[in-house]
């Protein structure tokens, strides 16, 4: 039972809570997320987390998907997941939920999904000068410089030909 008006979503399904732990799933466009988030905020939901999934290899999706989970405060328990397929960039909802700040930075850091409108989009967990996005499915950490121990230099030819772990 949805007692909030969600204009920005393109589709909604109810989910069996006992099997999935969630009540509703919605799909939305990445650009509409601030409006959707504002609707949840008005209905006094809190933002539980923002996750990105690398579904580029999955045929039905073929792109990154950013999932936003909203949870109602108080009774009855109500969990919504809004799934936004991201083709070029996601839109930041930090204006609505300040707590989204770090989650969106992590999405950028781990998956490389740019978030438009984010006040401080820089890496969160990895060092700031790191290249690569670790949670992408095609991430290969074969940068020879990164595997340098003190005094041991792996030549690029060795790294390309042999094993990459030092």
């Amino acid at each position, binding site marked *: 039972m949805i007692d909030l008006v969600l204009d920005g979503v393109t589709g909604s399904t109810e989910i069996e809570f006992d099997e*999935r732990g969630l009540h509703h799933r919605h799909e939305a466009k990445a650009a509409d997320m601030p409006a959707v988030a504002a609707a949840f905020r008005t209905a*006094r939901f809190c933002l539980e987390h923002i996750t990105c999934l690398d579904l580029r290899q*999955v045929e039905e999706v073929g792109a990154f998907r950013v*999932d936003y989970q909203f949870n109602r405060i108080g009774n009855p*328990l109500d969990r919504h997941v809004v799934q936004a397929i991201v083709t070029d960039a996601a839109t930041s909802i930090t204006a609505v*939920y300040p707590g989204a700040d770090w989650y969106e930075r992590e999405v950028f850091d781990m998956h490389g999904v740019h978030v438009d409108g984010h006040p*401080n989009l820089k890496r969160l*967990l990895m060092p700031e000068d790191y290249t690569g996005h670790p949670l992408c499915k095609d991430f290969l950490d074969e940068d020879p410089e990164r595997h340098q121990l003190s005094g041991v230099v792996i030549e690029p030819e060795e790294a390309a030909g042999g094993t990459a772990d030092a």
Partner: protein
Amino acid sequence: MTPLAPSMQLVPDEQDSETYYLNMGPQHPSTHGVLRLRLHLEGERILGVEPVIGYGHRAHEKMAENRDYLQFLPNTSRIDYLSGMIYNLGYCQAIEKAMQIEVPERAEYIRIICGEMNRISSHLLWFGTYLLDLGGFTPFLYAFDDREKILDILDSVTGSRLTYSYGRFGGVCMDVDDTFLRAVADFCDYFAKRIEEYHKLVTHNVIFRHRTKGVGVMGADLELDYAVTGPCLRAAGVARDVRKDEPYGIYERFDFDVVTAEGGDCLARHMVRMGEMEQSLKIIGQAVRNIPDGPVMAAKVPKRIRPPEGEHYFACESGRGHFGMYFRSDGTDVPVRMKLRTPSFVHVSTMPVVLPGTMLADTVAILGSIDIVIPEIDR
């Protein structure tokens, strides 16, 4: 609607000579792990804070994508090593819920006992280290003395002291005997008296009250904005606890209160955690009295764990707050994505809102009172 908290980017201003920047760096006695706080100070007053995390990033979520569900089980304890049992059992319960595996009664009771003992040991460690940060060296040793008792009891049945792999999909891996139950019951009696001592030694101490009363107020409005959970939220007067809101395991059979306090300051958080320890004792007492006989492992557990396709979510209440696991399965052995929603991640992100305006000594008090575990933030 509260205004947007500035995502603090501390860029030193060359013209500004009245203020200075201090690095409470990754190595610091009071940041409880490798957390870096870039502080912008004027004298002793904090003007701005930028937490820098990632020093303890171990790629648990990436590991989850490359291991099957059973192989990931030991990882779960190490995400938050202080609530290792709770996370471990929570992960088992998440998979059991997805796979619709029935857990025998005795295993459920054992899980409750071990989980609540773990919660007490986590709060005891918080208590000791918090006082250490404030300068009182002695309660640390008393708390660790009690914690040793818990660790010994849990060690006798699980084989580990800190990071447990005790749960299995369908129950727990080893049964407990009467010695264990007697030791738990004895510990409960002993610890109830110790909490009184701690209240006398610490809670009523005038210096402690001066350092914590009115310091670091985290109001209930932070909940909506940041999704603060756990004792930090309950200290603001909001009675939310995963064990009551969406009971998992057999928590609905137990009679316990959700401890709240008013004010949202450090003292309130202290009182909430002390109260939670007492409530845990209550739960453990009920569990020990009512534990039935029977098997501790489900009769039919599938050999290959393949949760149904799609997204699943499971939440449990750890020592720090609401721990959520959101994972997507595609019907194979290995999850497509495992997201670990940890409470400390959120709590540290509130620091740029809570800390400015306080004094440097309060930073230590506030950081200690929100009870963060850095590996949980960085995963």
